[in-house]
């Protein structure tokens, strides 16, 4: 046998290479820079440079894209405007997330435990804290996750899909476990997220195996070709398709594959929640889009009801359970489930418009999510002695926040309004384009359910606004809450707030950019 070196089109992969390369460098930094503080700075700068650089590279790629895009390595990867759009989105979330990862309280505390291996409450933990240890590995881990997600949006091969899924999942599992406070919850969340994540990726893999078995190919194009020419393997194809889709629905957090969401969101350190909530959903949506359009489009009719049912179930369950939550992060988690439903509404009937609507939807949703969780990092409990503790995430603790910190509360209100889809926020335009996509394929009853769910969902968003602005600080609780100040987190809040407003008022440029991205490079590879 002979071996010829494969031709790889490296140029389109530049953004990816930058991020993954940076992550490798960051690991080396871990090994060679001893002082935690220096290490942290180095990591932060490195991450930001890499992410921004990658985003720049992606934009350059976008501008110089030759034709519809590039298929790398015989259909393993496809870089087209759609994938570049998603990559930029994920890079934005990655950048904002990194800023949050690096943010500290006034007292100089990070969001992450100083020593992951120490038992909560042990002397080791105290010692590690006192010595100023830091788990700066979170930065390379985040970089790997970003890289994996970018990959996830671009892969056009089932096996690569699986690998990419693991690339971004594994770091997230670890990151979830690294909270500084409430570490029991953090561990619990990580364990659940991990077990269920592994479980779902096994399902996805098994589905991929079926598809491979039925079509003899793992590349999307090959699968699509196999589906159109299948004889006697329909059941296998359908079962495989369903399992692959279920694996992705898990990552989107759609009912009934949603159960990990509240627990992981609540348990994870808030910066991780923010990053995960925004980026994972975007990446998984992108991957699902590509799988559905590039590989499983032939099963559109067979799978459409799946999207209908899952969308309705997600919207309703997410909404009704969020209604009764008293824990803020958990409430937002359930809201994210409802939003998963809204996302899936656009999948009904697989209209072309979904390809440009969903990036916008996820952009608006992701920005608001990042912003909301960034605000959460800034509101903290204070002990009787005046020491600042963890985040105040019980709803009641937010009473009167509008008086304590009008700008912060105002930003939070803006994000909530965006979640609720009130006009002049990005969320409204997102909902509008997503619903448009669904209605264009005739799924207006689904949209009707969606708006009813939105109306009900508005209740719990508004409840928080009522608490912040229309309720007074409870008697005797004036000192129980500390408004923290971290320049980095505040930057994230400000940036996301401005973007949410801008995308709500003048979404035109972004919409047309995504319109350009609304074309998939199909049919290449074997």
């Amino acid at each position, binding site marked *: *046998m002979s*071996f*010829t070196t*494969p031709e*790889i089109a490296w140029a389109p992969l530049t953004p990816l290479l930058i991020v*993954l390369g940076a*992550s*490798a460098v960051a*690991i080396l930094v*871990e090994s060679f820079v001893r002082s935690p503080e220096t290490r942290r700075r180095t990591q932060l700068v490195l991450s930001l440079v890499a992410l921004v650089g990658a985003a720049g590279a992606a934009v350059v790629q976008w501008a110089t894209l030759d034709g519809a895009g590039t298929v*790398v*390595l*015989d259909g*393993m*990867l496809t870089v087209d405007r759609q994938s570049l759009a998603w990559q930029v989105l994920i890079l934005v979330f990655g950048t904002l997330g990194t800023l949050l990862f690096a943010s500290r309280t006034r007292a100089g505390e990070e969001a992450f435990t100083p*020593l*992951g*291996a*120490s038992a909560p409450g042990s002397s*080791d933990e105290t*010692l*590690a804290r006192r*010595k100023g*240890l830091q*788990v700066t*590995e979170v930065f*390379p*881990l985040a970089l*790997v996750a970003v*890289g*994996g997600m970018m*990959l996830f949006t671009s892969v056009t091969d089932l*096996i*690569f899909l699986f*690998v*990419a899924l*693991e*690339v971004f999942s*594994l*770091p997230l*599992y*670890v990151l979830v*476990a*690294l909270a500084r406070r409430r570490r029991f919850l953090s561990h619990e969340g990580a364990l659940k997220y991990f077990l269920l994540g592994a479980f779902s990726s096994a399902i996805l893999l098994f589905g991929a195996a079926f598809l491979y*078995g*039925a079509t003899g190919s793992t590349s999307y194009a090959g699968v699509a070709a196999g589906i159109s020419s299948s004889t*006697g*393997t329909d*059941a*296998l194809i359908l*079962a495989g398709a369903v399992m692959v889709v279920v694996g992705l629905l898990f990552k989107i957090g759609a009912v009934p594959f949603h159960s990990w969401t509240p627990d992981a969101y609540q348990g994870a350190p808030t910066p991780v929640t923010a990053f995960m909530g925004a980026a994972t959903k975007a990446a998984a949506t992108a991957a699902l889009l590509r799988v559905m359009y590039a590989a499983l489009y032939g099963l559109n009719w067979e799978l459409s009801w799946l999207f209908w049912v899952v969308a309705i179930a997600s919207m309703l369950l997410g909404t009704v359970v969020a209604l009764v939550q008293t824990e803020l992060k958990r409430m937002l988690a359930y809201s994210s489930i409802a939003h998963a439903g809204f996302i899936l509404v656009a999948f009904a009937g697989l209209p072309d418009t979904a390809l440009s609507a969903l990036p916008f939807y996820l952009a608006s949703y992701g920005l608001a999510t990042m912003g909301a969780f960034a605000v959460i990092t800034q509101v903290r409990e204070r002990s009787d002695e005046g020491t600042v503790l963890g985040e105040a995430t019980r709803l009641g603790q937010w009473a009167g926040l509008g008086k304590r910190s009008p700008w912060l509360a105002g930003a939070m209100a803006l994000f909530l309004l965006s979640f609720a889809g009130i006009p002049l926020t990005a969320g409204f335009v997102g909902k509008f384009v997503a619903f448009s996509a669904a209605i264009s394929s005739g799924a207006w009853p689904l949209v009707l359910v969606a708006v009813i769910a939105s109306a009900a969902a508005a209740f719990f968003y508004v409840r928080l606004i009522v608490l912040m602005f229309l309720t007074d600080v409870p008697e005797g609780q004036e000192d129980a809450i500390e408004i923290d100040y971290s320049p980095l987190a505040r930057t994230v809040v400000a940036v996301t707030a401005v973007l949410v407003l801008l995308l709500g008022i003048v979404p035109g440029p972004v919409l047309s950019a995504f319109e350009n991205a609304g074309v998939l490079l199909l049919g290449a590879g074997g």
Partner: protein
Amino acid sequence: MVNTVMFWIIAALTVIPALSLLFARKAVHVAMSVVLVMVGLAAAYVTLSAPFLGMVQIVVYTGAVMMLFLFVLMLVGVDQREDLKETIKGQRWIGLLAAAGLGAFLVSIIGRVTLPTADTMPSGDPEAVAIALFDRYVLVIEVLGFVLITAAVGALVLTHTPRLRPRKTQLEVQRDRVRVGADPVNKPMPGVYARHNALDVPALDPEGKPIEHSVSRVLEIRHQTQEGAEFRAALEDPSRKEGDR
């Protein structure tokens, strides 16, 4: 086509031990059974003309992965038993039903499918695998590197405790010991009265007082220690013989 006998052997070798996942109480038993399953799968790979993969399976799974499992099991305590009684109402039956249903569906789906088997056997030898790996799948391989790095970093972050306290010199250790009033050198050996079983008799310090902690705590707990007083008395009064006791 594959050997039917081989299939049934493999089937038995995998399914039966796999059932221990559901019914065995001790995690160690489960782990050992899964090792068997892995071996069975390796055999299946070989049968399915993937000999290299079969070898890798044995090396990676039985050799590394399952050993890692066992290692962790040892770490958390081998005799952590699990009560098989279900605590969530209905979970067991619905769970069994759901899993069985899932299996049944998958099997029935496969049963419904007519899929021809190619006459050509895939070449699963190392060279063919290597060429495939580094040709079309080279990017995957490269990305896999990140999976592995992540795994390593993740494991480190979660389990590795760096040296939090400075390493003590021997001098410091000694000083600390003296400071807390520990024995300057070694703990004295029991049994100054080397008679029949001197371990139950405390040693004597230079002043002749018994050093109580020289006797093993186990014996103390079992109340099998000797005061030593009577031996001394016997020494001072030779008329008293051991046999007198």
